């Protein structure tokens, strides 16, 4: 067919083999780098613990041993069971509610006018101070912890989603309209994928804040779960156990954030998989 002509000059612009080789090289290196930095971190911790910088500062090896001890005696799994329930619930509610509210505010003037100032104030305020207030209303159970998670996680998720929706690529909106896209199609097929990088950045911050919220709630109001495990071992001066607990929740939070990033690339922005 006469029209089936691919221009040579355009085809050569596409240096795919070279790019993907380079991408593999670059993708391998961060893993090695990450391992090196973890090893370095563990080494410095070990040395600092041996000096010791403080009598309350255990070595890395003691902390690891304490970690396995806490798993073996069942106290850490039990603590996580208690902490993860409100955390997962609070994070999931914040995600759906936060993205939903953010989209509504991004799309409607009324929603923006009504809700955005509230979330800006909430984000700016030291909301951790509200956590003790939560107990007055909701007691010290699961509800109070879930609310504590949401107080910290929701504002950043709402505000990021709202900003992302406000700054959606105008020319893609016009394109969708010109090809007869409905309002709903525009939201699900253009606005959401276009906004997803910023929404996910908000989710990562929100999830991290949710971890802060649940631990704060357990330290401040409801002595259960991980917060209680930390308090308990501090009161007994079992510093290795205390640090093991703290390190475990940091590691869990980090893993959750990595998982979120994986979902984003996998589901919403497949073109970034190689990048």
């Amino acid at each position, binding site marked *: *067919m*006469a*029209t*089936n*002509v*691919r*221009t040579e*000059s*355009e085809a050569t*612009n*596409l240096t*795919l083999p070279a790019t993907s080789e380079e991408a593999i090289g670059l993708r391998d290196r961060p893993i090695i780098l990450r391992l090196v930095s973890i090893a370095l971190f563990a080494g410095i911790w070990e040395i600092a613990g041996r000096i010791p910088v403080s009598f309350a500062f255990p070595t890395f090896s003691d902390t690891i041993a304490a970690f396995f001890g806490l798993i073996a005696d069942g106290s850490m799994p039990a603590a996580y069971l208690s902490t993860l329930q409100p955390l997962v619930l609070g994070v999931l509610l914040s995600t759906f509610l936060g993205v939903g509210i953010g989209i509504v505010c991004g799309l409607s003037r009324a929603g923006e006018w009504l809700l955005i100032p509230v979330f800006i104030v909430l984000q700016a305020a030291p909301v951790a101070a509200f956590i003790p207030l939560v107990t007055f209303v909701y007691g010290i159970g699961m509800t109070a912890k879930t609310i504590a998670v949401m107080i910290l996680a929701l504002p950043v998720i709402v505000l990021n989603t709202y900003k992302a929706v406000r700054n959606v690529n105008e*020319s*893609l909106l*016009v*394109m*969708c*309209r*010109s*090809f*007869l*896209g*409905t309002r709903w*199609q525009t939201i699900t*097929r*253009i606005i959401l*994928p*276009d906004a*997803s990088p910023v929404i996910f950045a908000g989710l990562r911050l929100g999830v991290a804040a949710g971890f802060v919220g649940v631990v704060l709630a357990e330290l401040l109001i409801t002595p259960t779960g991980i917060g209680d495990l930390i308090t308990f071992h501090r009161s007994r001066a079992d510093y290795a156990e205390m640090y093991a607990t703290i390190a475990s929740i940091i590691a869990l939070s980090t893993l959750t954030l990595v998982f979120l990033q994986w979902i984003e690339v996998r589901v*919403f*922005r*497949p*073109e970034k998989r190689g990048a």
Partner: protein
Amino acid sequence: MAVTALREKQSAVHTSVEAIVEVKGICKSYGNVEALRDIDLDFPRGKLTSLLGPSGCGKTTLLKIIAGLIGASAGSVTVDGKHVSGPGPERAFVFQDFALMPWATVLRNVAFGLELRGTGKTEREETARRYIAQVGLSGFEDKYPHELSGGMRQRVGLARALSVDAEVLLLDEPFSAVDEQNRRKFQEDLIRLRSKQNKTFIFVTHSIEEAVYISDRIVLLSPRPGRVSQVIEPDINRSGDPDRIHRDQHYLDTVEEIWQGLKQYVE
């Protein structure tokens, strides 16, 4: 003068071909900027008409009014006798900045118009593959836009517009973000593609050479406010080798004439 001769010939041709798009008394102001004043135009079915003029003269505005993407301040547009009040299935747009979804493959981008219409996946992908082949992008179906050159991206934009099978294609400076060599290749391909499709093209450009090279009719717009200053029908035989057109005496004369006419608007 040669131009008047052309105009007379144009009116003769004009009556023989039915107009698919009719623009009547279109005016458009943005606040107190008057972009278009009293535009009356007919676009004959199956022809490629270019809107040519210096930048800022309202070409994009007129094309978007025809597309139903923006409303006019006065006047009306009809397509096949039906009044235009928004985008419609009989018109498809090719965007100056391509407007491709970066998260979607070439295949999904091309099939997107059909996806929005609810066409089944197998059917729309089959149609999309056919048009991807027609614009010369076979083998690139699973690539993402960022992996393509500018020229290839605009081929995706063209294939998307072709695959919804609209009668009227509206192209807003489709080659302006494409480099010179690819632009020329693309222009040749467009001429070939047109000979196979019985579609009406409305093509915006600011390049005189491009307009004369590909158009059956050229509408010259004058700036501030945009008005129709002249309609030209270059009588160029495009059936043979497209490369030959660049050396055609009539092509060169027409380019020169238009330039003489437009010169007054350029400082």
